């Protein structure tokens, strides 16, 4: 638990800077807008469908609001998370405070986890805002709670994976802009990688669609809990955290 001091310090810095407030507000506004738009559309469609009772079974708030909303939250966080991760190591390197951190009795893994969990907590606040939205919706409808839980689990895993990549990129450069841009590019690339699976042919299709975030996250937002998806995200997180640790120890070795 030696990562706790750095975790607290990073959280403090997020709110002092005040990146956390900006990201929380913008994320809240955008997801709020999306939620409103989905509800309004649902309202319109259900009015129209009420005259054709035959189609009615397809129109339910879980499938027409919750599923697309989770999907859109994931996309929005893809834009926002690079902003949260960009300074984590870049700033320390630019201002040389990394020398303090590396000469305190902390292991590399304490340093990395402190930063990782601080960022993850801000992310949890971000997606936590939507609990308000669902609670309001719950007043008039009956949402499938298990699907919602599944959707949140997917969001957390996905966010943790995004953050792991972001921290890794941040450990490579002193420049925050480069850090954010490269992270964003990589995230988008991983998201869209499944497009290739239709082009590369039978042999590699499986590989590309497995590596891409796309299919895995879809399952979560549709309410499917598959251990393969959980394993995918966990291995993704561990892989990039491992790379970050290698970079940190090589930084010590090269100066």
């Amino acid at each position, binding site marked *: 638990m*030696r990562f*706790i*001091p*750095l975790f*607290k*310090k990073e959280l*403090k*810095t997020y709110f*002092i*800077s005040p990146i956390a407030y900006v990201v929380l507000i913008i994320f809240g506004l955008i997801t709020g807008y999306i939620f409103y738009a989905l509800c309004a559309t649902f309202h319109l469609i259900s009015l129209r469908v009420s005259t054709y009772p035959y189609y009615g079974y397809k129109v339910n708030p879980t499938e027409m609001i919750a599923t697309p909303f989770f999907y859109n939250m994931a996309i929005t966080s893809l834009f926002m998370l690079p902003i949260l991760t960009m300074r984590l190591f870049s700033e320390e390197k630019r*201002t*040389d*405070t*990394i*020398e*303090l*951190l*590396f*000469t*305190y*009795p*902390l*292991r590399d893994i304490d340093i990395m986890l402190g930063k990782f969990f601080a960022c993850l907590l801000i992310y949890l606040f971000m997606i936590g805002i939507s609990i308000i939205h669902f609670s309001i919706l719950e007043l008039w409808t009956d949402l499938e709670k298990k699907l919602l839980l599944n959707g949140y689990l997917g969001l957390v895993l996905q966010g943790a994976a995004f953050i792991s990549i972001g921290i890794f990129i941040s450990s490579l450069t002193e420049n925050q802009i480069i850090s954010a841009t490269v992270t964003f590019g990589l995230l988008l690339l991983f998201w869209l990688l499944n497009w290739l699976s239709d082009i590369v042919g039978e042999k590699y299709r499986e590989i590309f669609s497995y590596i891409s975030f796309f299919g895995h996250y879809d399952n979560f937002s549709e309410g499917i809990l598959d251990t393969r998806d959980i394993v995918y995200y966990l291995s993704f997180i561990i892989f990039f955290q491992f790379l970050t640790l290698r970079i940190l120890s090589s930084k*010590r*070795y*090269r*100066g």
Partner: protein
Amino acid sequence: MIEAKNLTKYYGRTKAIENVSFKIEKGEIVGLLGPNAAGKTTIMRILTCFLPPTSGTAKVNGYDILEDPLNVQKNIGYLPERNPLYEELTVEEFLNFVAESKGIKRKKEKREKISRVIEECGLEGFEKKIIGKLSKGYKQRVGIAQALINDPPCLILDEPTIGLDPKQIIETRKLIKNLAGKRTIILSTHILPEVSMTCERVIIINEGHIVAIDTVENLTAKLKGMTEINLEVEGNPGKVKEVIESIDGVKEVEIIPPVKDGINKYIVRSLKEKDVRKDISEKLVNSGFGLYEISLREMSLEDIFLKLVREE
């Protein structure tokens, strides 16, 4: 307390330090003295386990820097050269973070230690100030405070007075002197008076090698084995030099530029045991040169340092 054994460090192909060995006893203040890029910072970074040496090793308080870096770091307080700080935090928040990072868990103990270093470093009244808004001198105090917070037996201060104004320099030196006694301190500097003012022993380092390790007094005395004489003589410089060099006991004759016809200034170095002034004046006058001045020269630590570094 601190023992370095054959430390060598290469950055790629560039050699930073080579075969650096020294031993520092408990409670000593030792100055690491050398021109810029001599390898002072590299030595300190190795001792604080920020960089591993290419070969060799060191022990701090009995812990090996390669085998037990965490314990070494627990026994060290380090002020890096550029004094990096988390400038967005307040002094108190920052010290709180450092205390926790250095493994001080209990709230009461933490509060005690923080208020102690705040007092020791003269930061009372600045606890709630944002570090980035402090003056350079006060930032330096915060830097020293973070090094001191867990009361480590060893302090490693890299150029603690660099970039400060004269008043701040005096204050910082006073602070360092006050810290001595209970703690072992290594401080690096390229300013000589600092060493004679604060340190008991000096390690002089140049181009990655140790040139001399001794007390300030001994170093001065050792080099005082040589006497330097100032001369002002009229006559052909080459011939004057020849005449002086022929005198028994004279080691070296240096003409101070610019060399011109007429009167020139010279520095003559001779062995301490023999006063050659009489011989010089006699010989010069007998050879028909005009002797305008002859005097003994006191050597400052500055001269000694330059001389040692040049000899190497």
